């Protein structure tokens, strides 16, 4: 009898503790479920988890749940300490990173200077034989983009120095934003394991990956920072926007990524659902062929749009605010700077006013004035024609609606626009081979995995897939000056100057910078969209 009573007491105490614990779990005065699962509906699966293979916007979202980088980013898009506590230039040619102590990977491996050295070896493809690693085909060849970075060394278990042959003022960003993988794990299991069974230091451990279907994560209890306040996370692939929203309305998912702007307004009025948005780096433009004849498969002709007055005229002919309001319902913004508004070093520029009259005047200055009965401008018998390649069904519905609208606006100032819908692969083939017609152009969007404006300003230096209007000598020189200047304030000023000059020189027709829209059940607490490419669930809780 006494034994039974004692057992009852033990159970009562356990129960009281359990109730007490669950009652203690509150966020903003609301009881939360620490063991819950948040299902997030996303439009696509990642191709890879090893960050070296590539870090596009979809992939980044998956990879950054598991892996972390030296430099983290806050909700305002500002760099904050991640796996590095601080970073500073020691001199013009040396950067020093002080690493966070007490961080472990999901398999228990310690994070330290050796980890960073191994990752630098992978990024710059050096010393790989030393580790016995046959590495993957990488998305970004750091050794080619940043050849000035020459070597790196550890100056303590938690301090790493990186040396360069010339100043690299954005090295904190270049190296700092690359997610870091565990050294011992990669050497022991091969780099393929990083892709199949990724092990990082991030707040989430990947526990299952069903390709094209879902990825499941569990909270990493040994996480060094502020952890998520729920236990399990699932990214569920639902390609159709209608399907994602139906799943939210049915209560099967808690959060929806990539809500179409048209649906956002309606969803926001529904009980139990909240809509959130933030600016993002996806920046959509028309790229015009302004390459000199020796830089593409030209047939002996320079690109038709080498005159900056023509490109500027195109910018003035496009009603960007109209696009933002009518097509994106306000979930986008016009931007006259070549740099995304959320990047470090962005400097706001005077908007390209919608001014068809001025556009015509600029075209006339450039020699395009003899409009025939069809209204198309001519110069020396040649019509002003733009053969516009348009990768339909790749960037979303808003993009698909924007291209024909822009074509009509350009026609209104006397440009004959021939739209050629192509699949994205065909567009990539065309720009890779350099077979864009001399009077060609294409609509496309670019984004960035980095925080620094350099990633955008570099676009018109070397000939690349998206560089169809290489900088003239003076802009090249100014760009180089931004790459040489280590003093942050002076560099910001130089970058602002470059943005102003690029704005006037107009290498592209800037269309819009998209906003990312999320819809969530009101059960999801404290979720705030980042201006970066991924979602951050640290500190997020689920209402009980």
């Amino acid at each position: 009898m006494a034994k039974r009573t004692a057992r009852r007491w033990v159970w009562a105490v356990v129960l009281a503790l359990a109730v007490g614990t669950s009652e203690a779990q509150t966020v903003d005065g609301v009881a939360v479920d620490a063991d819950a699962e948040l299902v997030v509906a996303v439009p696509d699966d990642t191709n890879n988890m090893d960050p070296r293979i590539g870090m596009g916007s979809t992939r980044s979202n998956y990879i950054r749940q598991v892996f972390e980088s030296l430099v983290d980013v806050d909700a305002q898009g500002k760099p904050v300490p991640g796996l590095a506590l601080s970073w500073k230039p020691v001199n013009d040619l040396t950067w020093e990173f002080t690493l966070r102590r007490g961080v472990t990977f999901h398999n228990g491996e310690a994070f330290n200077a050796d980890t960073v050295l191994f990752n630098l070896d992978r990024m710059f493809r050096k010393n790989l034989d030393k580790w016995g690693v046959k590495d993957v085909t990488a998305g970004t060849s750091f050794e080619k983009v940043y050849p000035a970075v020459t070597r790196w060394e550890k100056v303590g278990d938690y301090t790493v120095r990186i040396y360069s042959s010339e100043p690299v003022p954005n090295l904190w960003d270049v190296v700092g934003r690359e997610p870091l993988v565990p050294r011992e794990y990669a050497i022991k299991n091969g780099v393929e394991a990083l892709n199949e069974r990724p092990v990082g230091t991030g707040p989430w451990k990947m526990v299952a990956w069903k390709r094209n279907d879902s990825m499941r994560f569990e909270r990493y209890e040994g996480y060094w920072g502020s952890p998520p306040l729920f236990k399990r996370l699932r990214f569920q692939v639902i390609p159709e926007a209608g399907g994602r929203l139906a799943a939210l309305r049915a209560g099967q998912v808690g959060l929806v990524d990539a809500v179409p702007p048209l649906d956002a307004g309606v969803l926001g009025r529904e009980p139990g659902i909240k809509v959130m948005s933030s600016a993002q780096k996806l920046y959509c433009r028309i790229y015009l062929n302004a390459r000199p004849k020796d830089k593409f498969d030209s047939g002996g002709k320079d690109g038709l749009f080498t005159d900056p007055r023509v490109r500027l005229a195109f910018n003035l002919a496009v009603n960007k605010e109209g696009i933002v309001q009518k097509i994106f319902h306000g979930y986008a913004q016009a931007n006259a700077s070549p740099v995304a508004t959320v990047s470090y070093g962005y400097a706001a520029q005077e908007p390209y006013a919608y001014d068809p009259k001025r556009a015509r005047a600029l075209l006339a200055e450039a020699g395009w004035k003899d409009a025939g009965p069809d209204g198309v401008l001519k110069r020396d018998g040649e019509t002003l024609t733009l053969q516009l390649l348009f990768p339909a069904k790749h960037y979303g519905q808003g993009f698909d609606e924007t291209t024909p609208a822009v074509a009509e606006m350009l026609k209104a100032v006397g440009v004959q626009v021939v739209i050629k819908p192509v699949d994205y692969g065909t567009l990539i083939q065309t720009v890779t081979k350099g077979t864009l017609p001399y009077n060609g152009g294409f609509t496309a969007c670019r984004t960035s995995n980095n925080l620094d404006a350099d990633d955008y300003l570099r676009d018109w230096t070397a000939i690349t897939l998206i560089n169809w209007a290489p900088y003239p000598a003076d802009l090249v020189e100014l760009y180089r000056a931004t790459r040489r200047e280590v003093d942050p304030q002076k560099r910001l000023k130089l970058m602002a100057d470059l943005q102003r000059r690029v704005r006037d020189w107009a290498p592209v027709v800037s269309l819009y910078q998209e906003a990312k829209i999320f819809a969530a059940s009101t059960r999801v607490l404290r979720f705030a969209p980042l201006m970066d490419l991924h979602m951050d669930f640290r500190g997020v809780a689920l209402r009980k």
Partner: protein
Amino acid sequence: MPSFLLRRLIHGVFVVWGVVTAVFFLVRLTGDPSAFLVDQSATREEIAHTRHLLGLDRPLYQQYAAFLLAAPRGDFGTSIRDKRPAMGLVLEHLWPATVELALAAALLSTVLAVPLGIISATHKDRAADHVSRIASLLLQSMPGFWLGLLLILLFAVELRGFLPAFGSGTWRHLVLPAVALAAAPLAQNARLVRAGMLEVLQQDYVRTARAKGVPERGILYRHAFKNAAIPFITVSGLSLGFMLSGAIIIETVFAWPGLGRLIVQAVPGRDFPVIQAGVFVFALIFVALNLVVDLLYAAVDPRVRLG
């Protein structure tokens, strides 16, 4: 019979070889995938380096010879997009997701089509026939994605999760996509059975059977349906083949992780190994199903001789 099987198997080998060879060269006409693997700021040199790593800078005949040597072992190379063995990826999507969905839809569309078609034929121009024909017409003309979304709205949203809106893994997940996928073939099969039965029921041997007092059920199922079934078997076999090759629209609407979506993603991404492995599997499925259909002909119609 054994000689028939042997002959068909040899034919099958040639068909599969022809298909994969055609696909090998056709996908390469669309360009190469190197540019997909680098970021937008990649230079031509970087892209050329990636081409080299993928072996795409080798002469085409060398690539084809390597492909022919490896393919019979099931080695179609590594997916350019997913960095995993292409055949493994294809099989992973085929089984269980695609097979489950295809079999469930095929079962629905055949099991329901037979009684519907027979009832329609035996009640020609009466209410049951009109209802069946109108329903068939509706199901055949409804786009799959639209029907799918309607089913989701009704069963997942309005009925608050009575059936799941997406995903796979349990029978509850299977119901809506299987119904949406089965709708059009069900209607088509019902109409085929009806047409076949109407023709057969006019035949002299049916009248004779009735005159001899054979029960109506026996006449319908033992005598008439067996003879009306040949076109139905052909079409059902082909339908199953198409379903097993992936139902891209339905898979997309219901986020079903099947083969159709894998292949459709592989095409714009120029993921040659996955496309080739996928088409190889499709070819095998169609060859096998055609063989089964031929064997079934002989089983249901003794006049058909295999040899």
